[in-house]
């Protein structure tokens, strides 16, 4: 008892001292912390409706519990496998095409020695990043139109048949990913350009003395030099796998391509807010988030073990 009191006193004193020292910082934090609690943590607590049968009169907190009913319903529903397949298929295509292109673009820009040319190309390729998803999607309808879209005009000029990219399920994934590359590759390249600029010039001089050509310099200096950045970006990218491009997929959807364009996140929206099956939708959402966190954590752990780079 005595010992406990002895230990307590400095602890309390320390807290008081810290409070006297930091109280103004705490005041500054009040509003932002209140924001996180109200707009993020209360909804997080509200995830419990995934385990409840939501009734409007009882609200989130008063509705009766029902265990894993909604999860079982989702896993056994005929939509489950197609949704999972579409979501993962789209994400992996995005990773396979969308991830390496910004790296290649950054290396190409880094190799261009004309400053003006480089600046011009950079300004151009960053630009589409700021176009809204709605505008991007309507541009897709314009340029991919099977009747008079430019892409199909070119295909026909080369002797092919016009393709309705947005109206056939089998073209949906590729259209989604390529248009994403058009919009975001330049912007995503910035971080690699910055990393490339940070590589020591001594390395290049030493390589030049050894007679290494450009390919060899890229392969043995540039790529190892930006590898930590690549690994970090890859983990972040994996962290988006399950929530990839919900808005764009939703806007690109139409009756003809729905077989490929319905992904979990768009399904959550439709089931939840259009059909008002709140608990079912929340359960699917929770499942989706958990899979996502699992992928992120395992990718991070793997990267830590293999490359010694990781997010945390």
């Amino acid at each position: 008892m005595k010992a406990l009191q002895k230990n307590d006193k400095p602890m309390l004193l320390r807290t008081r001292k810290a409070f006297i020292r930091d109280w103004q910082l705490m005041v500054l934090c009040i509003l932002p912390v209140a924001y996180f609690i109200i707009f993020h943590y209360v909804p997080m607590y509200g995830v419990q409706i995934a385990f409840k049968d939501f009734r409007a009169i009882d609200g989130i907190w008063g509705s009766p519990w029902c265990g894993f009913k909604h999860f079982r319903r989702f896993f056994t529903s005929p939509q489950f496998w197609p949704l999972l397949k579409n979501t993962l298929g789209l994400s992996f295509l995005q990773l396979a095409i969308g991830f390496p292109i910004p790296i290649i673009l950054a290396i190409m820009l880094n190799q261009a020695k004309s400053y003006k040319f480089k600046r011009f190309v950079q300004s151009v390729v960053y630009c589409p990043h700021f176009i809204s998803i709605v505008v991007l999607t309507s541009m897709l309808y314009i340029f991919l139109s099977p009747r008079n879209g430019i892409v199909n005009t070119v295909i026909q000029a080369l002797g092919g048949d016009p393709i309705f990219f947005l109206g056939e399920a089998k073209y949906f994934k590729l259209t989604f990913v390529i248009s994403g590359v058009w919009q975001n590759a330049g912007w995503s390249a910035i971080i690699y350009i910055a990393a490339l600029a940070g590589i020591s010039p001594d390395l290049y001089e030493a390589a030049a003395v050894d007679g290494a050509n450009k390919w060899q310099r890229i392969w043995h200096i540039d790529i190892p030099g930006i590898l930590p950045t690549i690994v970090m970006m890859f983990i972040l990218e994996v962290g988006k796998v399950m929530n990839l491009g919900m808005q764009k997929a939703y806007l690109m959807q139409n009756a003809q391509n729905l077989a490929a364009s319905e992904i979990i996140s768009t399904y959550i929206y439709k089931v939840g807010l259009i059909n008002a099956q709140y608990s079912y939708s929340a359960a699917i959402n929770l499942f989706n988030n958990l899979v996502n966190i699992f992928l992120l954590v395992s990718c991070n752990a793997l990267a830590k073990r293999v490359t010694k780079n990781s997010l945390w």
Partner: protein
Amino acid sequence: MSLSGRFSRFRAQSFSDKAFDIVNYTLLALIAFLVLYPLYFIVIASFSDPVAINNGQVTLWVKGFNTDGYRKIFENTKIWRSYANTIGYTVVGTMINLALTMMLAYPLSRKNYCLRKPILFMAMFTMYFSGGMIPTFLWMSDLHLYNTRAVLVLLPAINVFNLIIAMNYIKNSIPEELYEAASLDGYGHIQYFTKIVLPLSQTIEIVLILYYGVAHWNEFMNGLIYIRDEALYPLQLTLRAILLQNQASSLGDVDSMMEQQKAAELIKYGLIIVSSLPVMVIYPFVQKHFSKGVMLGSIKG
């Protein structure tokens, strides 16, 4: 370096390096063209005759110059109302964003702040896990924020990525000695924050204004989820109704489907230009700041 100097250096390169440069420059020029051309096409199409566009005659220059599309857009009150709404959401929303982000970024930039770690963790955790659409939606409805302007400016009040950029910027660019000197003059943290940190962080404030501003301007999903009343529509929802849904009600007094589609055809290019104009106009001037943001964010904190 003079031209001849450059040329002789070029000649001194090995054959493979020369080939590499030629291929590299050609590909980069091609990429720039592929990115630029669609944007250019929208511009010339917006001034062209819709019939000529339909027949594929508009490729490199305006054909059948007219501004009917733009006139129709200016006459359309629904477009202007949502345009004005979005200007409001962007201005008010960005101000809230900036204030809250800086207010939290400063305390988190102080290494010996006793609550630094728990608050930072609390913020970062929301990047990886969230309650999801439905719990948030139900909670917003409980708070009577459904179908209000407030939800569009409050819900995205702090973006954690932007918060981290701001925190790192303050930590790395404002020297600790300044705080020591200020505290000798009797400054507390709040005074130091408002009188010294805020004025010295203009670079990051510009970056934050740009990022948040563009995000508000392009915001679509929150509008779709939370706004039912057309009078409160942000621009992107109206754009979707006209550009992607060819919605009859959006274009006012037009009767048949055919008329409807023709009208949409006429205004769609101009509408893309008008709706993207604010972002595209400021883009060339602030491009440097935009990319600076990414680099500031990449500094590990």
